[in-house]
């Protein structure tokens, strides 16, 4: 049996930028993002795939980074909360979360934002029920979800306007 290497070397496309990474092979994508790339915007609430706080987009799809082996992500596009804003201009979802009370403690916010982004990138013409369905795997203990849904609905309206 071949020896397990101490570290592996891969390249990710992180928020549109090619990034070489080197990490111990047992690490999850969550750990590599936070510990090796210093992208601490992505949070963890359980590290067991139960809470959704660590959601990021892998090739545009929302994935739980705590259940994704970092080894599997070579050459893939990874989007995190750090890549949402354009320079200092907030993404419509970010602005809406800030304005509508979508964040209280803010700990679930990055995971919520990325999950919502995947939803609206696919189709900004969504109902409240579709929004609730999309974020039903992301737990929030502060808001009771209502203002999060309000925020996503408001951002969706803005994004629909921008597409016209």
């Amino acid at each position, binding site marked *: 049996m071949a020896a397990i290497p101490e570290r592996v070397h891969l390249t990710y496309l992180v928020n549109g930028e090619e990034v070489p990474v080197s990490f*111990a092979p*047992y690490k999850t994508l969550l750990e590599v993002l*936070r510990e090796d790339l*210093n992208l*601490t*915007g*992505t*949070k*963890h*609430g*359980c*590290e*067991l795939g*139960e*809470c959704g*706080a660590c959601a990021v987009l892998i090739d545009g799809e929302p994935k739980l980074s705590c259940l994704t082996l970092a080894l599997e992500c070579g050459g893939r596009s990874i989007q*995190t*909360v*750090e890549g*949402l*804003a354009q320079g200092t201009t*907030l993404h419509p*979802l*970010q*602005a809406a*979360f*800030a*304005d*509508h*009370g*979508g*964040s*209280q*403690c*803010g*700990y*679930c*916010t*990055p995971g919520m*934002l990325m999950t919502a982004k995947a939803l609206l990138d696919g189709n900004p013409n969504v109902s409240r029920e579709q*929004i*609730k*369905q999309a*974020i*039903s*795997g*992301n*737990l*929030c*203990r*502060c*808001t*009771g*979800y*209502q*203002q*999060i*849904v309000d925020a996503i609905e408001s951002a969706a309206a803005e994004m629909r306007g921008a597409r016209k």
Partner: protein
Amino acid sequence: MSAQEKRFDVVGKNRRRVDGRAKATGQTQFADDLVLPRMLHCKMLRSPHPHAVIEEILTAKAAKHPGVHLVLTGKDFPVPFGIMPVSLDEHALAPERVRYVGDPIAAVVAKDEQTAAEALELIEVKFRVLPTISSPQEALQNPEPRIHDYGEQGNIHRNQSYEFGDVEEALAASDHVFEDTFFFEGNTHLAMEQQASLAAVEGDGKLLLTTSTQNPHYLHRQLSRVLQMPAAHIRVIAAPNGGGFGGKCDPANHEMVVAKAALVLGRPVKICLTREEVFYQHRGRHPVLMKFRTGVTKDGKLTAMHLQTLLDGGGYGSHGPASTFYTGVLTPVTYELPRFKFEACRTFTNKPPCGPKRGHGTPQPRFGQEVQLDKIAEKLKLDPAELRLNMVTKRDSLTASWLRIGSTGLAECIRQVVARSDWKSRYDKLPFGRGLGLACSAYMCGAGVSIYWNKMPHSAVQLLLDRSGQVTVFCGATELGQGSDDVLATIVAEVLGIDTGLVRCVTGDTGITPIDLGSYSSRVTIMMGNAALQAAERVRETMAEAASESLGIPPDRVVFSQGRVFAAEDPGKGMSFVEAIALAEAKSGTLSTVGSYSPPKAPGKYKGAGVGPSPAYSFSACVVETEVDPRTGWITVPKIWIAHDIGRALNPVLARGQVIGGIYMGLGEALMEEQVFRRLPPKLSGALVHRMPSMLEYKSLTSLDMPEVDVALIEDPDPNCPFGAKEVGQGPLLPVMPAVANAIYDAVGVRIDEVPITPDKVLRALELKNAGKNPRIGPEQFPSVPYPKPIFVLPPGEGGDGGELKSPEDKPERKKVAA
């Protein structure tokens, strides 16, 4: 327009919170996001036994494991600690005894978490297992083995009794006496952030601990005690908390451990608890068994209440002495209650310690009281809303227990939810399977007395302005997500007539911010807010004097609004806010003021009168609609209406967010959240273990379970509160659980007298109903508790002075006050 009469610039406007942008960009740095050069990582070894003596700990193998820098055990922490001065019963690492599964025993500090975890496996601990106490009933039956060698007796931690007026006499004279027992299961905070702490010795040789804490001040004091270091050599920074809900109030073992390790090693040491460990840390809602004996007149007025509570405290004291009081002291605040007897007992058990969770000790008796009122209304054939409306406490009145009510909007809250839910045409009229339930509640706006006795302010604020136009406000208050920084900025901005974006908040740092006692008891808006108001008014006065000279008008005719400082009678005559600062700085020197706040003295004088008084009380009324499937017992909640008496909403977006968040947490407690334990079979040690130390097994509401919430904010400004603003963080949770229970009764005619109300219980009750039996699920009896002889206090209406009657002869003869 006078300077005092100007319209609000900031208060009452929907605004983006001051920390909203950082949260939406992921830039808010929580404790586990922090990294320092040369940082090491810590993991703790926890007890697999609920109750055992530690006979031996062998750490040599772990210490020699490559990459390990330090192993700590109980002998490194000889000094105990605890949040309450009367319950200093915890050690950072257990020295000789473990009291629950998860009690920390040893800690390893290593180059990374993986190495630390490997080394934990190499620590050998020899335990002598002791019998375990799993419930308050067992604790009462088994005084031995004692879980702690302090407390009232056996395994009773706290035991108390108060009687305000002769309750038995009043019950005997009542038209009806209702006797009901209820049980409220324990549950936990489940904040999204797992607690993390980073300790470092700074360049000046002093200790810095950055940590997930709601109460950096109390932690600071306890660190000084445990580490035996002067407090002035320790700095605690409360990192922005990823939710608290009471779970980060207690000073925690892991905080002491990393602080000690950093001091020993001279290197930064970080720990982040796993989710499983967060369940062990707990300090959540106490399971409480309750018995209410309540007298009423035939037209639905309360005559007296005898309330008995029995709390399951878990393995340590935590906030227990306060929690015990809170299972009764706020009960008389909502409705007129001429006489009140309250007996409470907290026992130790071999489970994770219970402590404060949102509502601290009051949701349990609130559940019982409001469900019992529903039964009373039914028996007296009164509408439950009318019954309550006819007996709400009056503004500025005193309760039988000598609490001063202050402002109250409860009647308006009831009217609002009744109107908005179309209660009158729908309650008791919906088809079988659908129902409405109503409940009310009250909560305090800050505890009137500090956790440790002192005469110093409860909150202090320092304000610094300079010619650049920046306004920096320093305060020890901590941000948990509830919006305390936004409240602070709002109050300063309103007084100075500027945008909140100009105010920089520096908070929760014992090294540089004046002391605020912490984010608990819904105290921040009122106490920090009043301190901020004083500091801001002082600096405005200095600026108004300088501006008045330049404008040639009296200082009291200077208005601060919309970023300008101008003459009240001629708004065109004025200057920018920045120019006004420069004038004042030239005239008076550096512009810095302080403000502080101490709550008013409470009217009660008896021993124990310090728990319950508050500068103001908030009130809530709630209507819940339910749909119950009689085949499965499944409960759906399509809509909730809530009206909350907030005094004034400083930022309505945030206020509504707090209300909906409170409803959410209450609904979770009503329907599913429970922290329960099971005993392993004897061949597997017989230990008590969590049934569910994970987020998957501990059920909480998702976005799909959460109903639409209709929120009405009732604004009747309270004179004791800044701009009249009362609390909103805890109160709105309280009426949800009983409103759900009452709605289920309206829907299918069964009484579930315990929380959570799960489909299996509804189904069992429906089976009882179909069998012609009492359709009720709940505790059958209340055990015999050896409560002490009550402290007897005459209520204000009966000529008392707020003090205890020392001798029995002082107690009025029954015939004199007989109804």
